[in-house]
């Protein structure tokens, strides 16, 4: 291997990258996935009851309702709009507060309540909003509850909300597209267009090409992984440690990508292999999402050994010292992949020599 020739290959990758749809794809996908996972799927798994209020009399209930933790409250301009939107299930329930409602309650009256419930809302949501509404009205009434409620936390203190458990999903997407897809597709493309043949008739050797392409993929993957973590506020005050873990993970996936790119006959085979084999790479993510599943299974998959340290540092507040064992295994996987890539490269070089 010659460092200078590898640098030439890397420079060529950098020069061509702005025109490459694949590089655009690699950069755009993590941003898109971050948006989808955090805004769309986060709210899909964590839905709060939605209450709409039409306040015709400047009621104190409205202000109190908007302060509630656990209920999304929205103010609607008129009763007709409220009814339409409750029926469409934009809201689980709607409350119309007529003029003088607070005064009537304070005077000990029992005014009629316009309380609408969406037919599609869950029975549990209906009871939550009904009890919450009674509680809010009690607040206007001024009566103190004849009971003191003390909240005691019990059970698993390590509970992690679903939004945090989605973090490895976003990281694996960011790193995988750049580290596996990019070098694999680039190698297959060069073989199909026979530009690799042209490069290899110069003094540049296959190892120089692989180092150049691999370096480009790792640099891009680390940057995208780092940006993804930063966008999700998951650097945990340890950017250096995160960069190191991303580097090891990116090298691991890059080596897999090079082996795939050298092995695949054509781009369709490569794409199909990623489509089919992706489930193995993604396996640790599924087990993070569902902690009730047996946690020894993802330890059989190499990607676990860089995703878990990221998760442990970002979510569980651990430090580099705590995740060293996992990182050593990840590094060992990288070392073990090098001879595999070398073998596939020699095989590929031999095939190229036969077809030239």
């Amino acid at each position, binding site marked *: 291997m010659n460092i200078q020739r590898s640098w030439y290959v890397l420079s060529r990758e950098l020069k061509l990258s702005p025109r490459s*749809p*694949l590089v655009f*794809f690699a950069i755009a996908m993590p941003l898109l996935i971050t948006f989808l996972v955090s805004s*769309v799927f986060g709210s899909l798994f964590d*839905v*709060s*009851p939605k209450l709409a209020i039409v306040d015709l009399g400047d009621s104190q209930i409205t202000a109190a309702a908007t302060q*509630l933790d656990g*209920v999304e409250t929205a103010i609607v301009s008129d009763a007709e709009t409220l*009814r339409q*939107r*409750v*029926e*469409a*299930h*934009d809201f689980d*329930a709607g*409350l119309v507060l007529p003029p003088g409602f607070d005064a009537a*309650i304070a005077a000990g*009256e*029992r005014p009629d*309540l316009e*309380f609408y*419930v*969406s037919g*599609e*809302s*869950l*029975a*549990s949501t*209906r*009871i*939550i909003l*009904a*009890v*919450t*509404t*009674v*509680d809010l*009205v*009690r607040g206007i009434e001024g*009566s103190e*509850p*004849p*009971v*003191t*409620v*003390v*909240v005691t936390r*019990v*059970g*698993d203190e390590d*509970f992690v909300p679903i939004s945090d458990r989605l973090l490895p999903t976003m990281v694996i997407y960011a790193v995988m597209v750049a580290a596996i897809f990019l070098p694999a*597709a680039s190698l297959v*493309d060069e073989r199909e267009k026979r530009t690799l043949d042209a490069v290899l008739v110069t003094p540049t050797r296959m190892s120089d090409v692989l180092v150049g392409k691999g370096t480009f993929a790792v640099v891009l993957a680390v940057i995208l992984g780092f940006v993804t973590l930063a966008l999700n506020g998951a650097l945990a005050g340890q950017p250096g440690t995160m960069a190191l873990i991303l580097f090891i993970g990116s090298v691991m996936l890059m080596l897999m990508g090079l082996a795939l790119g050298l092995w695949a006959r054509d781009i369709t*085979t490569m*794409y*199909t*292999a990623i*489509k089919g084999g992706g489930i193995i790479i993604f396996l640790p993510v599924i087990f993070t999402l569902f902690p009730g599943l047996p946690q020894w299974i993802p330890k059989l998959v190499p990607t676990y050994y860089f995703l878990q340290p990221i998760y442990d540092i970002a979510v569980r507040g651990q430090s580099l010292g705590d995740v060293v064992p996992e990182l050593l295994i990840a590094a060992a996987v990288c070392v073990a992949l090098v001879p595999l890539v070398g073998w596939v490269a020699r095989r590929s070089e031999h095939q190229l020599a036969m077809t030239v």
Partner: protein
Amino acid sequence: MTGSRIVAIMGKDFREFTRNRFFVFITLLVLVAYVAVFWFLPDSVDETVHIGVSNSVLSTDVGGVTESGTAGFALEIYSSEEELKTAVEEGQNDIVAGIAFPPDFLESAAAGETPTVRLLVPAGLPAEIQLLLEGAVSEIAFGFAGTPPPVDPITEAVVLGVDRAGNQISLQQQMRPLILILVLMVETFALSSLVAIEVQQRTAVAVLATPVRVVDFLAAKGIFGVGLALSEVVLLGLLIGAFAVNAPAVLMILLLGAVLVTGFGMIAGSYGRDFMGTLLVAMLFMIPLMIPAFGALFPGSSPTWVKALPTYGLVQAIIRVTVDGDSWSQIAPSLLLLAMWGVAAFIVGAFILRRRVATL
């Protein structure tokens, strides 16, 4: 336009599609995975909050809450606070939290004192459940103190729309149309790949050097694309029970959906310079086209811009038939919208492909 020429081109496309056995194997594997995922999804909705109670004071009806619970709120009685705590920690009987009444609760409440009730709350309990528990405990205490609530939203509530309490749409039912639409969207890419290969390898020129005319070529691509998308999605639909209700309507919707994705497939295939270019262009179409399907998972009406997307009619029609059991006349507006988008996409796709072929 000649039938035999069209059939010949379609035969060539089919051989092209099935030549790569690995590709066919993985395509079938993905289909099997979709089916497996579907049948693993929960087929019912538990809309009841299960709460554990110790030293129960609810032997009589207090504010509509009894030991048997109420709609959306079920109680599990434990003899001691220690037992209740263990049950909450272990999530026994699906309970999500516990209310530990003190042994002298009734006496204290009757004496006008303010007893202390302990809520046993596991980590990660949604804030709204805690609101419910606090409110329920207060109302029970108010009930014993003889102070009825100033309003009664439980019995006075007016239900708007179809009341699905006790008959909610399960995640499995929600995912059925989504899975069908995802497969249709993926076919956009499959067809665009076939068209792109034809354009990139200039085999279209070779085909057109024979007596085959451009119109035969376009018709063959269109029919093959529709057939490919439709056969895959119909097979999937059969395996996930999508034809259980109004099968002819579902078939019509899927046919129009196949026409729609074929149009987009032809556009993507015409613009893709190589595999990755085709993938990128196909993704540019697929991502916005999937938004209405994902949007359907969320409660509430879709924003106006989502309604303007070509697949909105497809998603609405399929949901209304498979989930709501709507009839032909009820889905007619969605079907018409889908048909208009499908025909427009097909015409534009054929026009762009024709121009692309002409430049080769």
